[in-house]
Each structure stands twice: as structure tokens, then as C-alpha cells.
């Protein structure tokens, strides 16, 4: 193991290691970050949700966007799989359907970065018990 010889060394090391605990630290207060839920039920996986999730995690990291990507169960939009739900900090969640890696890229560039809506938004027509 290389010795840490200065505070700068330590800072650099920390930056390299930050990734190790990023996921855990963000999970503590996900509301401060972009939260993305990927529907990963059987139908989602069959239509490529796993590739989309991999792509999202990699792309977000490369583009320096702090986000919490989680997998969720079936969101109910089986006709539109893979589906992802994106929540920007302090905003209402938006669900996108028919997401492949190309569209995921578009969602990151337009919606996540700038808040512009893109095609494929699914109407949210339910309430959850948390809102009661």
C-alpha cells in the first residue's frame, strides 16, 4: 500500500474512494438527489430494464450527476416496459415508458439536467397510501 504523505494525498485518495460509500451516503437523504426507480419485475427485465439500469448508473456517474438509482417492483405499466420513475429534488415524480438506452440518454440530457419533458411520459393515475 502506498503511504499517504500529505493532506493532498489523502484528499486524492478520498476522491477515488468516494464511490464506495456514495450510494450509502445518498441513501440517507435521497430527497436531495435525483431519484430514479427502474421497474425490475419479470416483464421489465425481459424487455431490457437491466441494461437500462446499468446504462443509467454508468452515464450518471460519468456525467457527474448525483443520483440514487434503485430497482423497484412492477409499476403496473407492463405495456410500456421498461419503465422508469424519475424524481428531481423537490418535484413530483414522472414516469417514463418504453425506455431503452437511447431514450435513457435523452432523459438524462433533457429532463434530469434541464427539466425539459421528453416523449414517453406515462400518466400517473393512482395515489399511494403515503399520501392519505
Amino acid at each position, binding site marked *: *500500500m*502506498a*503511504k*499517504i*504523505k*500529505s*493532506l493532498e494525498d*489523502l*484528499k486524492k*485518495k*478520498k476522491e477515488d*474512494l*468516494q*464511490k*464506495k*460509500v456514495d*450510494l*450509502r451516503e*445518498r*441513501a*440517507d437523504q*435521497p430527497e436531495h438527489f435525483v431519484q430514479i426507480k427502474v*421497474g*425490475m*419485475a*419479470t416483464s421489465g427485465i425481459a424487455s431490457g430494464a437491466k441494461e437500462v*439500469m446499468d446504462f443509467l*448508473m*454508468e452515464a450518471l*456517474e460519468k456525467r457527474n450527476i448525483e443520483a*440514487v*438509482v*434503485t*430497482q*423497484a*417492483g412492477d409499476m403496473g405499466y407492463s405495456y410500456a416496459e421498461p419503465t422508469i420513475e424519475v424524481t428531481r429534488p423537490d418535484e413530483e415524480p414522472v414516469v417514463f415508458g418504453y425506455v431503452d438506452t437511447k431514450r435513457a440518454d435523452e432523459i438524462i440530457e433533457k429532463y434530469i439536467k434541464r427539466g425539459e419533458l421528453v416523449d414517453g411520459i406515462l400518466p400517473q393515475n393512482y395515489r399511494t397510501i403515503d399520501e392519505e
Partner: protein
Amino acid sequence: MANYKMHLLVCGGTGCRASASDSIGESLKQKLEENNLREEVQVIMTGCFGFCEQGPIVKILPDNTFYTQVKPEDSEEIVQEHVIKGRQVERLLYKDPEKGEPIHDARKMDFYKKQIRIALRNCGFIDPENIDEYIARDGYFALGTVLKDMSREDVISEIKESGLRGRGGGGFPAGLKWDFAYKNESDQKYVVCNADEGDPGAFMDRSILEGDPHAVLEAMAICGYAIGADKGLIYIRAEYPLAIKRLKIAIDQARQYGLLGEGIFSTDFNFDIQLRYGAGAFVCGEETALIHSMEGDRGEPTFKPPFPAESGYLGKPTNVNNVETYANVPVIINKGAGWYSKIGTEKSKGTKVFALAGKVNNVGLIEVPMGTTLREVIFEIGGGIKEGKKFKAVQTGGPSGGCLTEDHLDTPIDFDNLLAAGSIMGSGGMVVMDEDDCMVSVAKFFLEFTVEESCGKCSPCRIGNKRMHELLERITQGKAEKKDLQRLKNMSHVIADTSLCGLGQTAPSPVLSTLQNFWDEYVAHVEDQRCPAGACKELMRYEIIPENCVGCTACARKCPVGAITGERKQVHYIDQEKCIKCGACVEACKFDAVIIK
């Protein structure tokens, strides 16, 4: 580095390991392997989550799922359902004790809502056996900053301004202690960490060492720089094998990174740490006794002054702080004394870790800001009294502390308030008692502990506590007189006034505080030979209510000493001379005919 999508945190504290959390970690890894997920999902063995009541704990991030009482065989379902399909395993979720509903998001648990975690910041969050995880959490930054930008005086005044007080029991201002050691000139000085946690039921120091050992090492190095010491010693009881193992790993890794050793951060500051093992004697938590034990002598206290800051280990200036105190130091340096001193009350700054035990729903380790009330701790974080029974008292500060009652529930907890209420903060033990607990027996229990742990050096402690214990024994047997209560009081005061060290001086506290708060209960034992809580065996009588007895003979057949007589279909009778009060008849009776008087 693999880019993990999901982290499975498995508690690797002593409590959860006792329930096979090791094999849970292993079998999770194996199941992930079988499903080709090792590259995507990381399993981390962490330190204690504090929620020991419901262990073993598995926490899943980023979705904040909190699984309790997990068994190795559950890992298949966790991997298949949660990891692969994204569905929480409902039956393993923590359930709200009042409503019985599963909680889907750990951040909504009452247990964690009121807590602020400073000393426990990394416990249950990082892998304690991996220095990289500590560094990723700003580890060793405080040490780097101190060596680069702060003078020794700066460090000491920062600690002074933070208002940090010793967490081991005494509550002495840590900055002042460092200052004394700094001012005493010597060719050699020592930094000692007191990890001789001895209060029954307290385990915060063990959890910190098991869950975040580097925090203590870093703080000791900072202290070494401030007071001018290049040697650190951790006095730890051999009864803490896991903490010792993790400390050894941590010291080794810190040395490899050059964060311990010579020329740390390319400065001329040298610092290294060694372990010293204790045999687990309570008195060795007292700093002079601790130092003698480290020197290879008997673990007996000596008169202060001279304080260790003047003449400590091998006669050299020595700074002794306990584990939890040190664990606060890196945060104070990183975030500043101003930030730290905003938390807490006027004279007690920061947070305190409490080990919540006894008749409370959520037994475990919690960290709350000073000034939190006992009610918040017991009823909100602790989830109230078990089985809906009535709260009776809470013993704080272990065998050196006192019992507080319902009247004290709204007292904000800090060093001075607890002292004023007749107890102490101590190291943070908190034992909750309900209506079934006899306060005389509680006092007797704690005194029994001090009698056993007394080193025997001074007579008030050695003989006095023994005599007091005998008196309490007689009270619980119904053989005492009213005069004995006054005797107890007198002896308590003499022992407190004349004992050499803290152990003896505080030994009568449980007796004094129960005498004061539960006088009627003592009187009932003495005058009516009755134990109101129904806990003192000798004062109990098992009787059969004739109206309820159907003469089924179940109790007579169960009685191991043949004390119950009666014909079939006739009312039975218990011979009090023969009865050994084992309670077998109560369990055998299906008609609630046997009662305890």
C-alpha cells in the same frame, strides 16, 4: 472498482454475530454468486446498528430497507425477491411496535428519528476492517488538518471551546485535561484510551471499537500531537475479542498508510499505538487503577493528586480519555467547535450514546443530543415499556448511578440535571424497570456488583458495602427492622464520604436513590413483610383461591416437592412450609386458581 447497484449491510457487531450474522453474510454472498450478481451487489459486514433487540439486522441501500431477525436461510428469499425482483420481503421488515405495521423505509423508524449520530456516525455504515471506507468518510482528515494548519495550542483550545466532556462517567472537560498534560513538561508523554467498559449493560465503547476503530486511533493521534506524546496505549478488556481483532487490523492498516508511525503526513510528528489487555475488573475503569494495571501492578486506585496528567503511566504525564470521548474528536476538528457546541445544553455539549436495556421494547444503542428528555428516550426511541406494562423507574449510570422515577421523565438529560436528580450520566447505561421490578432487589443487584468488584484496598468500600448488602438481603427476606433503614442511610453517607476512589464513593447511589424515591416499598418489606412488586421470593406466598379451583390435580402433579394436597374434584391446598416458590403450579393451573401474594 466494481460499480455496485446495491449494498447489503449486514451487522457484524457482537450481538448480531451471536445470532449467526456471519453466516448470513456468507450465504448472501453465495446466493449472489449463484445468480451472477457479485459484480452488482456488495455485501458489507458493518459495526453495530444499535438495534440489537431485533438482530441480526440486514439493511439494504439505496432503498433503505431494514430487515430484522434475519436467519441465514432467509438469504435465498432476499436475493430472489429483493435483489432480483425489487420486492421487499414483507415478513422480515421491522414492524412498528404500537401499530404492528411493517415499516418500508428505515428512515421512518421512531428508533432512528430522534437520534443524531456523531460518535456512532460510521457504526453500521462502513466496513470497520477496511481503512478505505473510513477515509471515504473523511477519515484522517482531522489529523491531516491538525498537523498541517493548527498549532498544538489551537487544537487544545478547539477542544475546550467545543465543550466536550469526558464520556466515561466523570464528565470532566476534555480540553482542560489535554491542557494539563500539555503543560506538564517531560521527555515522554502518553495518550491512553480507556476501553475498560465495565458497567453492566453498557456496550457503547465496544460498539464504537467494533464499528469504527479508526475514529479512536485518529483522535488519539490528534491528542498525541496536542499534548506532545508519541505513544498511545489502548487499555481494553480481554473480554472484547472482536473489538481487539478489529483494532489490530485498524492499527495495522493505519501503519501501512503511514497514518501511524514516524513522520506522519511528512511532518516530524511520530505516533504509534499499542494495545494493553485488562482482565475485566470494574475498578480498572478508574484511571489510576487502569494505569497501575497497565504497568503490571495490581489494578488498585491511588490517591489523586497527583493526577495522571502530571504523573501517569510509568510516572510520565498521561492523558486518559474513554473511547466515546475520543470518537467525538475528529468530528469536532472537521466541523469546528462552533458547530459542535450548538448541539446539546448549556453545560453539556454534543450528544451522548446510551445503552438502553431492561423492560423497554427497543433494547439497543442510541445516540441523542444532550438535553433530550428521558421520556423521549424511553417512550419514543425505546418504543415504550414491554407488554404494555407501567413504567416504574430508570436506572442511569450503572452501579454508580441512581434510580429515577416518573417525576423525572421530563428532565432534559445532561450531566448536571442527572446529578441534581440524584443519579449520574455515568457511561450511559440505562436500565428501564416496570411495575414487576422490586426496587429493593434492584438496589441489591447493583450493590452486589460493586461488592464483587471492590478491589479491597480501602475499608469503607470493602467492608461497608458488604454490610449494606447484608442489610438489603435481610430486607428482601422480610427479616429486617425499621431501624435498619436508617442504618442503611447512615452507612451510605459514610461510604460515599470516605472511600478512596469513585467506585466506593458512588457505590451507595443505587441504595440512596431508591430509599429516597421508593421509601414506601422499603417500608412494606420491613413492616408488612410484603414485596409490593411481587418479586422477592422469600416474601411471596403461593395460594389457591378456593372459588376458582376445580380440583383437576394438575398443580399437585407438577409440584416438585409435593407441597400441594387435595382430592380429585376437591379444592387443593398449598403447604407453605414445604413450598419452594418455584411457580410450577401457576403455570400448570388452567383456571387461574393459583395466585401470588
